[in-house]
């Protein structure tokens, strides 16, 4: 099992009247961003990522969000660059660049190639479409989302792997000269990660390219279906994916005792699902963002909105894992069985308004007592 420390970099200082706003994203006024507090947060969060390497995490993960208090990383590549020369061993995981909304995806190929050199070949490159609200935020037509994602992906991979100048003419992008300087250090290119949320197209896409398929917030029973779908797509192609190609991502909070963990985690977990992820359907799923078949699947999967889930529901369903080191290790091992196995755990340890001290303590306990217990699971020899 490989373990990564994932940071969302939330802005937790929401006003008392936050409930008057429909969401923490897109239209939530940026007057509530205090530059002084924000400045402190960036440095605190980068310290937490660096600390995770020191205590033994295998990977440090960042992602991309726009115009939101939910996450403060419009450019994940800048955060990865900030980590590149402050770290030595851990993978630097960009999970991912939102290539569905990029006006110029060639820039992503260039930046990841640069990061590959800055990190000495430690960069992992995730690709995401971008959440619905980001199509409003960057004025990109959501009906083009899938087409833009696919084309940007194909262009980036070709730019990384071609050692000859080529022209690119596609439905969304035209480049008469593609000739990447620098080429990436890792050959043929940095490992690719794709988050999936149930789309069979994505499962097939990941299996075909042998990319790592990672989950997003969902109940364990639903993630099981996604992982099975990915395994089936690989089986259809005649192979069994390595365990580490399947990554569970989940918020995790560890404290010395169960009682203390719950007391500290409950407000943080509730913040994440009630405030950070407060986003009505208009924002999440603009027209054309979801195909008719995926939407049908989504509607037929009976899932309560986050706002209707209690803290106990969230824990029972597997949306988050909280407790003492022994409890968390046991719960993650149980989820390992429920999910039919996974070889990477991407943990969200800085949850909502949890403090720096709480986050580093949770990180430290997880590294000291949980990682050793789970390390033997999900390695290729098991498969």
């Amino acid at each position: 099992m490989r373990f990564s420390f994932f940071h969302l970099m939330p802005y937790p200082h929401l006003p008392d009247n936050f409930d008057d706003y429909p969401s923490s994203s897109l239209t939530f006024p940026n007057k509530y961003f205090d530059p002084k507090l924000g400045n402190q947060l960036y440095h605190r969060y980068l310290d937490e990522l660096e600390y995770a390497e020191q205590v033994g995490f295998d990977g440090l993960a960042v992602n991309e969000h726009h115009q939101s208090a939910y996450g403060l990383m419009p450019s994940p590549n800048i955060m990865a660059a900030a980590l590149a020369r402050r770290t030595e061993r851990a993978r630097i995981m960009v999970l991912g660049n939102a290539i569905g909304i990029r006006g110029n995806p060639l820039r992503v190929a260039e930046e990841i190639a640069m990061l590959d050199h800055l990190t000495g070949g430690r960069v992992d490159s995730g690709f995401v479409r971008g959440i619905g609200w980001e199509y409003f935020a960057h004025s990109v037509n959501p009906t083009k989302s899938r087409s833009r994602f696919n084309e940007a992906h194909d262009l980036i991979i070709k730019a990384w792997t071609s050692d000859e100048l080529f022209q690119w003419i596609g439905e969304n992008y035209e480049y008469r000269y593609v000739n990447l300087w620098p080429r990436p250090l890792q050959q043929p290119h940095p490992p690719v990660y794709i988050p999936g949320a149930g789309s069979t197209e994505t499962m097939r896409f990941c299996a075909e390219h042998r990319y790592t398929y990672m989950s997003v917030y969902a109940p364990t029973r639903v993630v099981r279906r996604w992982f099975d779908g990915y395994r089936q797509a690989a089986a259809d192609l005649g192979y069994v994916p390595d365990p580490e190609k399947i990554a569970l991502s989940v918020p995790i909070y560890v404290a010395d005792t169960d009682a203390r963990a719950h007391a500290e985690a409950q407000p943080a977990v509730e913040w994440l699902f009630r405030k950070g992820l407060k986003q009505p359907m208009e924002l999440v799923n603009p027209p054309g963002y979801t195909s008719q078949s995926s939407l049908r699947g989504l509607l037929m999967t009976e899932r309560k909105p986050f706002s209707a889930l209690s803290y106990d529901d969230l824990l029972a369903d597997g949306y988050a894992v909280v407790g003492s080191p022994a409890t968390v290790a046991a719960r993650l091992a149980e989820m390992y069985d429920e999910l039919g196995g996974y070889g990477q755990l991407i943990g969200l340890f800085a949850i909502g308004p949890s403090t720096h001290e709480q986050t580093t303590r949770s990180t430290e306990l997880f590294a000291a007592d949980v990682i050793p217990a789970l390390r033997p699971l999900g390695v290729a020899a098991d498969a």
Partner: protein
Amino acid sequence: MRLIPAPRKGGGLTTHAPAEEFLDLRDGRVRLFRAGQGEPLLFLHAAGGGGWLDYHQRLAARFDVIAPDHPGFGGSDDFGDVEAIDDLVFHYLDVMDELGLDRPHIAGASFGGWIAAELAVAAPHRVGSLVLLSPAGLRLPDHPVADIFLLPPDQLVATLFSRPPPAPAQPAQPATPDIDAILAAYRDQTAAARFCWSPYLCDPKLERRLHRITAPTLVVAPLQDRLIPVAHARRYAERIPAARLTEIDGCGHAMYVERPAEFADVTLTFLSEHSLGEHSLNGVIR
């Protein structure tokens, strides 16, 4: 996903059903509703979706009303190659050719008004007379159009109507959502987004081309329009050479749903003053 009140499923507005017809074009099939006798009147629906309402029925008392669903809407195929407003113009030239309409009356509401105006700019000789009901299509930065894709359903209704909508008796919420109805509404909205997302509900070049329109034109503006400010209709009327502007007080953007009789009267009066005349026989190619 968006659930905009779909007129075709509203209760009690249709007096009697028009004919539902299908038109086979090269790249797909168009569904249309048609009823009435007289000169042909092509009606282009708004971004909320097509259908046949009391308003259409009233027009059908004196005209041959033809109301197609736009590409990707209602019962029409997706027409994936129809990507933007210029493609919609060619699409409707194809529809008119296939129907044998040389120079019909054309009326359009909101998004449909935008299409009608573009058609009249590109092919002025194909438009007998033009009626634009609170048309979209102009980019007036000082008079922004509300975001139909972002408004939650209750606020969208409040934006579209000046008074609470004529509430058709709603059946009690079914225990399980009607997935097919949700998917159909999402498909309509997807088609609207395809054409209207960006530039938002407009063609920045349209305003400077409006002088090309030769057809006698009526622009109708509901004064309580909270979706498309009345400045848009006024600008259309200023820029189109033979345009008349009628402003109607006490009505919102969903004008032909909110006040069908009044809007039908205004439309009929204007069309009757502009008979298609000698050079074509009821607008049909001779």
